[in-house]
């Protein structure tokens, strides 16, 4: 039994049969509504197949970025059982820093140089963004979360909300309200045309880099000594520490890994959306959290697939349902609510749910 005041378990007990029936009916109603919308409105519009394919590709790119951020949520949740509410801001800091690095590079003409120079510079920009995110992520852990590690669950959550606002509005005060726009170098501004489908280079690059980073993370967690320590701490913190694992160090490394991925995502999202500003991490952060929940929070492959699915739904959803694209955020949040109601452990299962103290 935990001492936490909010211990309310999601998995309803058998006695709540009426609730279950209600939610089932609600679920059926939603499915019918969606199917009806899609068949009568979305498909009736008569978009060509190429339209759907480009939307889907767009969704995959977005999903790749979300996946990188979602991994940060999942990693931290797996180890500390807390939602790092400020993770979206960690990503935004990466994006902002990447913007200044890009400006610096552009001012020196590196972006117009021969392609190896441009590639190296772009990679460097991403690494700088990642480094900034890591710095912020680790500071956050040290100042806002570590003192609260023994506190009841709500306390670190509120602290995280505070940290999130603090980061957003500090960036606002330091760098101003106006959005900073990324100027893509000529090398990656074009795209590939396959029949009617247009694939922008940035999109392809973002997707590839996301996949590579995810593979790298998977390798670290599954194959290295560090990864084993992380898994041990996620399994049982006190036993791990008795076995000689430095729990603090593992937690710091977890934040570093999560923040590095978020930083990379921030820079790539900057290239994708072309602008960054103080609050540009907030909504993607929520989306990535949704993705993590969709895949089953604490579950690393789950977060990756959850994010790709979310990206696809977000890209295709508005057209398929025949509603304005302004509502794409509504779709994501509604999805979050629905998952939590119908399948709180996510599509792929909440790996660590049993041990959640």
């Amino acid at each position, binding site marked *: *039994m935990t*001492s936490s005041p909010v211990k309310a378990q999601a998995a309803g*007990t*058998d*006695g*709540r*049969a*009426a609730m279950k029936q209600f939610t089932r009916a609600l679920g059926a109603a939603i499915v019918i509504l969606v199917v009806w919308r899609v068949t009568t409105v979305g498909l009736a519009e008569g978009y060509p197949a190429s339209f759907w394919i480009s939307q889907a590709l767009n969704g995959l790119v977005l999903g790749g970025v979300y996946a990188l951020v979602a991994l940060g949520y999942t990693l931290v949740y797996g180890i500390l059982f807390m939602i790092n509410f400020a993770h979206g801001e960690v990503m935004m800091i990466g994006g902002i820093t990447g913007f200044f690095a890009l400006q610096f590079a552009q001012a020196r003409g590196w972006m117009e140089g021969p392609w190896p120079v441009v590639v190296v510079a772009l990679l460097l920009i991403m690494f700088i963004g990642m480094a900034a995110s890591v710095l912020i992520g680790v500071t956050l852990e040290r100042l806002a979360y570590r003192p609260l590690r023994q506190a009841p669950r709500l306390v670190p959550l509120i602290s995280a909300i505070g940290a999130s606002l603090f980061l957003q509005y500090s960036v606002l005060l330091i760098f101003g309200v106006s959005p900073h726009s990324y100027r893509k170098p000529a090398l990656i501004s074009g795209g590939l045309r396959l029949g009617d489908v247009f694939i922008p280079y940035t999109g392809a690059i973002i997707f590839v880099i996301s996949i590579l980073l995810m593979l790298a993370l998977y390798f670290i967690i599954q194959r290295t000594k560090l990864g084993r320590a992380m898994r041990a701490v996620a399994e049982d913190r006190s036993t791990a520490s008795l076995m000689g694992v430095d729990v603090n160090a593992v937690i710091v490394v977890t934040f570093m890994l999560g923040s590095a991925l978020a930083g990379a995502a921030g820079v790539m999202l900057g290239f994708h959306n072309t602008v960054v500003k103080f609050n540009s991490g907030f909504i993607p952060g929520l989306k990535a959290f949704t993705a993590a929940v969709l895949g089953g929070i604490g579950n690393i492959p789950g977060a990756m697939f959850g994010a790709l699915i979310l990206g696809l739904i977000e890209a295709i959803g508005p057209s398929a349902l025949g509603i304005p694209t302004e509502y794409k955020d509504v779709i994501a949040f509604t999805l979050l609510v629905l998952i939590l109601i119908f399948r709180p452990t996510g599509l792929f299962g909440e790996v660590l749910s049993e041990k959640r103290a």
Partner: protein
Amino acid sequence: MTALLSIQHVTKVFGGLTAVDNVDLEIAERSITSLIGPNGAGKTTLFNCLTGLHRPEVGEILFNGSSLIGLRPDEITERGVARTYQNIRLFGRMTALENVLVGQHLRLQSSHWSAVLRTSRQQEEERAAREFGRELLDFVGLRGREEVVSTNLPYGDQRLLEVARALGSRPLLLLLDEPAAGMNPSETERMMDLVHRLRDEKGVTVFLIEHDMKVVMSISESVAVLDYGEKIAEGTPEEVRANERVIEAYLGPEVAVEEAAGNAVD
């Protein structure tokens, strides 16, 4: 005596594990029945099925003639089944009296509006509830501890307070999950006395899980034994004590044979 509680073919499966396997059990009104068995035998799971925390896959649970299956825990409490917990689960930041008042929650009728307006009926009901709460605390032996925050109570008193909270709902059947666990001999003595008084003075039927054989043998009128989810024996304490399968379950097959031999010599 009629059966107050009748458990019929109750089966509960977790994943691949059958925690409670086709258990039949009848509990007579105003009796004291013990449920024993080795660790992991499914005793607490059976309690959880009775109180609506789990829903058994198969079987029927009749209480006072009507089924408890599919009811919510609070509905089951309303019917007159209350329980305590193996690992004490009090409302830690409430005082002892407040814990008992929460126990009385569903026996209080006044509407929330009347609470806002403090109508005389609501005031009267609150006063009576407090009075009854004090009575119950007195009954379990916690007189004078009404205003102590429950986490500050000594361990034994916390167990007593759980009983008082359960009594708040005026139950017909009280399920005690290891009431004497972790208690010293004198506290155990007090608890056993309380169990007797519950039945004799309050007319409550008691169904308890207990590991301490001395307690089981001295207070129970009948004993049921679970092993691997199955009921392997039932009867008076003496009958159960002599039952071979019970000895086997507790001590392992080889020892059991010797024990049985020894018993025969006695």
